[in-house]
């Protein structure tokens, strides 16, 4: 594993009197898939929103490639190479795959001051990306509305890659998918990591997580309570960590 792409130090987030996150330290390395686990309300969604630039942290610091950053918006995070794929994928169903991949940052060519689309190049590039990801989508001109849930995930991932994302954050990417589709998206996530991308993944599905993640971080009541390498843990241990039945968590919570 290479050095950390992103380091979060002492991240806290408060909404009025409510503490959603406190004192979270985390490192995310290039080429690694990191899974965030935890019960509902454990703070993992708040944490990725901080990373994505959607919530400014109340305390703490984020370093990207060694440099301290502060994100005022998802646009700022994107400029630092962080792309977020939300559960309700922000894709336009009435537009084609290649149009979606480039939407908002199209390739243009100015003729007499009019910005014309470079459709052929966009189509070609998207066809390449789809092939590279082994996404099994043959026609980049197909409307996204005609695609399955898993194929839409591939398009969203293509979009993130095309933005030159170095860290892709995915919120429950397999939640609404059938078994075969889930397999495909998991394979896609591995592909992303092989390309040197860091992937942060929220999932409730422990078996998915064990299949795809290199490292797992468990959140509980707004704190990071455990961090495990996949090779060193078992699904039973992770479940115990999530529910608070694990002795480590008990000791930690007693100490507070």
């Amino acid at each position: 594993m290479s050095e950390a792409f992103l380091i979060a130090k002492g991240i806290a987030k408060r909404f009025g009197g409510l503490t959603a996150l406190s004192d979270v330290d985390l490192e995310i390395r290039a080429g690694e898939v990191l899974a965030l686990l935890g019960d509902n309300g454990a703070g993992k969604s708040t944490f990725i929103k901080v990373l994505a630039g959607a919530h400014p942290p109340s305390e703490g610091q984020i370093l990207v490639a060694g440099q301290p950053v502060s994100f005022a918006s998802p646009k700022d995070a994107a400029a630092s190479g962080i792309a977020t794929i939300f559960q309700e994928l922000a894709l336009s169903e009435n537009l084609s795959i290649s149009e979606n991949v480039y939407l908002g940052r199209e390739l243009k060519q100015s003729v007499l001051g009019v910005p014309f689309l470079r459709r052929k190049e966009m189509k070609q590039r998207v066809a390449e990306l789809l092939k590279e990801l082994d996404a099994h989508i043959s026609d980049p001109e197909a409307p996204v509305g005609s695609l399955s849930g898993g194929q839409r995930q591939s398009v969203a991932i293509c979009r993130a890659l095309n933005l030159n994302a170095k860290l892709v954050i995915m919120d429950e990417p397999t939640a609404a998918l059938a078994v075969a589709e889930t397999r495909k998206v998991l394979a896609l996530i591995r592909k992303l990591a092989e390309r040197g991308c860091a992937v942060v993944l929220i999932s409730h599905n422990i078996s998915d997580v064990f299949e795809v993640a290199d490292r797992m971080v468990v959140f509980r009541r707004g704190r990071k309570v455990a961090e495990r390498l996949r090779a060193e843990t078992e699904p039973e241990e992770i479940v115990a960590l999530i529910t608070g039945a694990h002795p480590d968590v008990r000791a930690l919570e007693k100490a507070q």
Partner: protein
Amino acid sequence: MRRLNRAMSMLTGRELILLAACVVITIAFASASPVFATPENAATIMRNSVELLLIGLGMTLLLAMGGIDVSIGVVMGLSAIAVGRALGADLDPALAAVIGPLTGALLGLVTAAVVVLGRIPAIVGTLGLLGIYRTAIFVVLGGQWLSGLPTGLTEMLGTGLAGVPLSFWMIALAYLAVWLALRRTPFGLHLLAIGNSEEKARLSGISVIKVRFAAFVISGMLAGLAATFYVATYRNVEMSTGSTLALDAIAAVVLGGTSILGGRCSLVGTVLGVLLLRILQNGLLLIGVPSLWQTVVTGGLLIAVLSLEVLAGRLSFSKLGWASR
């Protein structure tokens, strides 16, 4: 024949149906009225389609992004007054011709400011503007017709260029410009993305406000251009000028296959929708149906097409919460 086949394959099912409908009603009216199938009457239908076509192009853009403008006919009326006044003041016809689109664009800017900045649903915001503009026309005209305008503009637009009147070239150019904007520039993609979902468009990094402003200004400009043609043809402007054009345009555009909820549109469909509507109105008049019934036909057609789309599952208003009201 092969060339015809290729041309047909470029049309969608909806557009083919419209084309067939145009042919069928043309045959029907031709057999019912001896005057219908004459070159003079064909020219009249074409002539009567000009303003509706230009306004229809703009309305297609607005509907594509989930917008609408029910004041657009009156915007043409106001622009026509501006052109008429310019002509009446013996301004150069070329300059008077430009005043139309300019006034329209300015009014489009006002519409955009009200609807986009005010964050009011377009149908309600433009309904308010319709009320205001109607009285504005009355006040500006002082209750009198603007008539007997100089013929300079009429002559200029009638000038032949390569054997075809200048007006035809200008309309073709307007169509080409709108088509290019819609299908060949980022603006068109952004418009359709906004029509599909404004929230998703915003998340994709599209500047929603800018795109919506541009669409309203373009639509206003096209209505203003329509005003220039209107004044050139009739050389008068009255209180009710343009008052039925918004209904006609919405009906024609929806007939053409553009979704009233946005995200899907067809410019070819709009052209065919305009033709169908104008052939129908002209034919009904010629077989003796009083002109009073024209808006009944247009309104009925609009409701019928929307109902059919809902029945066919192509359209659903339920997510807007309109279904139960």
